[in-house]
């Protein structure tokens, strides 16, 4: 329904400019003085807004503004850099001594000490606190006591592997070797927490207090959060604007309309329906940058049809029957890039991304596809059903396109059909209950920019996101070796060897890398998205 002619766009831009100046004088006028406030679209966080309880982008967005952890992932390169950590030392990749920088405080004046971290991690790992991200602390010794797997009563409230040495030093003992552990510490779950969090938990939730460049000014749950720059912020990444008003939108189309009308400054989720016109509407105020998200098709290995010898040929055949270029061009308007491995380009070559690792197996070739599937014994039951949740994203469109591509390649109209499930929760429920009978949608958004995060949680035997229950001894051994390897380059090499195993078995079909997209008003400059597809708010300039 959006128009695309230039004349109309000009009128609209003028309207946007007029309205922007009209609403610019929110806090202290619009003069590019760093005091002006911008507004940005937001979604209601699904879980209570606690660091170890937030596992989706909308809540993570806020945590990224009000917290700084030991490490921070560089918004440009994704590299884990020391933030509050002065040094993290280890001699055996298992015992770590962490020193916290001096001079950091929470916005309520409380000092950030070693205890702030240890208390926060203990809270996150303790079963009784119902933290959705508790498993992040699973590598720390004593986790099995504070968070018993079988749900029985926990026998300890604190992790035995954490010890406060003095005000600024604490030690971490892991239950196994994990050389890249320090690089995982930029994940929000590892953020420090002030004493107020434990003393007045309800009060903290209604107005969170952290140590980041922004403080929460007011929070109307479910509709709006006003964040303001914290003047006394001690870090180098001080906010370049006066603050951010996050507004909850039910529908990203409305947010986009608001942006066009000058009622909103920043939209970090351009609706699929607008992708065709967004360049005409916004010009260079539209961002489309790679993010650490990969979409794949997973298979149920608990189903004997998919777990017998020869089915790897069927899976490779299916992979070769998918015309990734055409689908990413026509359906996603190049906001996704055809995948050539099982990681993400945001890792960079050094981080383990290898373009073309998948090789022929991801090249579109209908003849080869047909041959491979025949060699592998044909499609189980003569048909594959791709299961997906129909409530979010534009999953229906691409699943239909993938099926279309497969059907055309195999010359069989009934070779592939989509199998929609009503809600995301129901979809996840069926996966958890092992009820899948054919390929299903699997998306992975990285927690931290490490190759380990793209491989271990998804394909290691019994891992938390190994939805297809794939299991391969050779792969598991390589992952174990890689984790124990203290030389980063060698570790990455071992991870890539493991990835080769994934390819040879076609454990999951890689589809495409997803980009982050955003659009912004003419008032803003220096807008960019980090590798997690979240706007880097502290660098945005207004006016």
């Amino acid at each position, binding site marked *: 329904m959006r128009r695309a002619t230039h004349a109309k766009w000009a009128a609209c831009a003028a309207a946007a400019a007029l309205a922007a100046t009209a609403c610019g004088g929110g806090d202290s006028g619009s003069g590019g003085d760093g005091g002006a406030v911008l507004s940005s679209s937001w979604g209601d966080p699904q879980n209570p807004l606690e660091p170890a309880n937030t596992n989706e982008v909308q809540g993570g967005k806020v945590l990224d503004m009000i917290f700084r952890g030991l490490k921070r992932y560089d918004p440009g390169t994704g590299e884990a850099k020391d933030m509050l950590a002065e040094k993290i030392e280890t001699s055996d990749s298992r015992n770590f001594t962490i020193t916290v920088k001096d001079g950091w405080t929470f916005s309520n004046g409380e000092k950030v000490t070693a205890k702030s971290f240890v208390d926060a991690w203990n809270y996150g790992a303790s079963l009784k606190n119902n933290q959705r991200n508790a498993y992040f602390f699973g590598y720390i010794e004593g986790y099995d006591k504070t968070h018993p797997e079988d749900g029985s009563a926990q026998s300890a409230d604190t992790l035995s592997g954490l010890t406060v040495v003095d005000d600024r030093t604490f030690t971490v003992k892991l239950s196994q070797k994990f050389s890249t552990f320090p690089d995982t510490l930029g994940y929000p779950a590892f953020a420090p927490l002030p004493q107020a969090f434990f003393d007045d938990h309800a009060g903290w939730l209604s107005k969170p207090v952290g140590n980041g460049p922004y403080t929460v000014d007011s929070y109307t*749950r479910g509709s709006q959060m006003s964040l303001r720059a914290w003047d006394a912020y001690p870090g180098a990444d001080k906010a370049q604007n006066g603050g951010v008003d996050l507004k909850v939108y039910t529908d990203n189309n409305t947010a986009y309309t608001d942006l066009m*009308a000058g009622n*909103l400054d920043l939209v970090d989720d351009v609706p699929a329906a607008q992708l065709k016109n967004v360049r005409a509407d916004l010009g260079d105020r539209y961002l489309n940058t790679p993010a650490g998200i990969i979409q794949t098709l997973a298979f149920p290995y608990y189903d004997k049809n998919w777990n017998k010898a020869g089915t790897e040929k069927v899976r490779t055949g299916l992979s070769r029957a998918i015309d990734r270029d055409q689908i990413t061009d026509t359906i996603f308007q190049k906001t996704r890039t055809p995948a050539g491995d099982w990681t993400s380009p945001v890792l960079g070559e050094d981080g383990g991304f290898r373009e073309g690792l998948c090789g022929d197996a991801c090249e579109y070739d209908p003849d080869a596809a047909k041959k491979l599937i025949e060699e592998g014994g044909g499609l189980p039951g003569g048909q594959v059903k791709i299961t997906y949740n129909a409530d979010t994203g534009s999953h229906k469109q691409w699943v239909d396109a993938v099926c279309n591509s497969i059907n055309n390649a195999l010359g069989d109209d009934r070779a592939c059909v989509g199998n929609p499930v009503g809600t995301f929760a129901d979809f996840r429920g069926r996966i958890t209950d092992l009820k899948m009978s054919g390929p299903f949608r699997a998306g992975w958004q990285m927690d931290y920019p490490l190759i380990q995060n793209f491989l271990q949680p998804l394909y290691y035997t019994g891992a938390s996101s190994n939805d297809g229950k794939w299991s391969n001894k050779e792969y598991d051994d390589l992952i174990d070796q890689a984790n124990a390897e203290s030389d980063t380059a060698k570790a990455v090499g071992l991870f890539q060897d493991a990835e080769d195993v994934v390819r040879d078995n076609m454990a999951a079909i890689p589809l495409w890398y997803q980009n982050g997209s955003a659009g912004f008003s003419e008032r803003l400059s220096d807008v960019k998205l980090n590798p997690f597809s979240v706007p880097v708010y502290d660098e945005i300039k207004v006016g």
Partner: protein
Amino acid sequence: MGQYVVRRLLQMIPVFIGATLLIFLMVNVMGDPVAGLCGDRQCDPATAARLRKEFGLDKPVGQQYLTYLANVFTGDFGTAFNGRPVTELMSSAFPVTVRLTVVAVLFEIVIGITLGVVTGLRRGRPVDTTVLLITLVVISVPTFVTGLLLQLLLGVEWGWIKPSVSTDATFDELIVPGLVLASVSLAYVTRLTRTSIAENRRSDYVRTAIAKGLPRRRVVTRHLLRNSLIPVVTFIGTDIGALMGGAIVTERIFNIHGVGYQLYQGILRQNTQTVVGFVTVLVLVFLVANLLVDLLYAVLDPRIRYA
């Protein structure tokens, strides 16, 4: 009269229990909501089990329903998955939707009835034909088309209004969304009033009133309109419930954080407590509105008595 009201109120109890039970079962059939709480990965079993216990999902459905019902009578509508009590969600959502509904109903009454009277009195004239044609168009165009079109024209192209409604959702911001929400019903009200007026104009009591020499204005407002309003009032009364529950589309288009928004989110997240709580209140609103309509009959038409 009093007895009649008491009887009607008592009748509400089985309707209330039946409606809540149905919705409770329907949301439960959708599967395990905890599975959707951990993103694209499996919740670790221990945390999932604790969450299920906290939300009472580990009990059999029948028991869950009884516990829920018992809690509702003490004013506790449960807790949503993001840790907010449902009563808190209600206290933020209902005022907004009530304001939106008030705006919509006002549009229906003022514009709808006025147009109905004018066309009813001038049947067959150009005014009548034009209004009939317009109402036909309004009825046949779906609400979301009207909504998006008005939003785009008034909000983006001409800049008269803001395309979305702010958190406060004041009355002036709700004028356009209210009009969109009311549009279809408004057309029906016009048509109902028109038919009713046209019919009653030929009735004996109107002829008598004219013969008595009453001024035309008094004949129309006191005798004709008052007696013609019964079907219209019935329609508007039942429409109040429909407007409040049916505002999902309008609220989504204009980003209004009312009942429709909470219901939509509750359904997506399979949040039984939110969905059942909100629908229960909507059912009550519907029942009470119906009762009020029935009582209003007696006021409008002196021939109707309740014993």
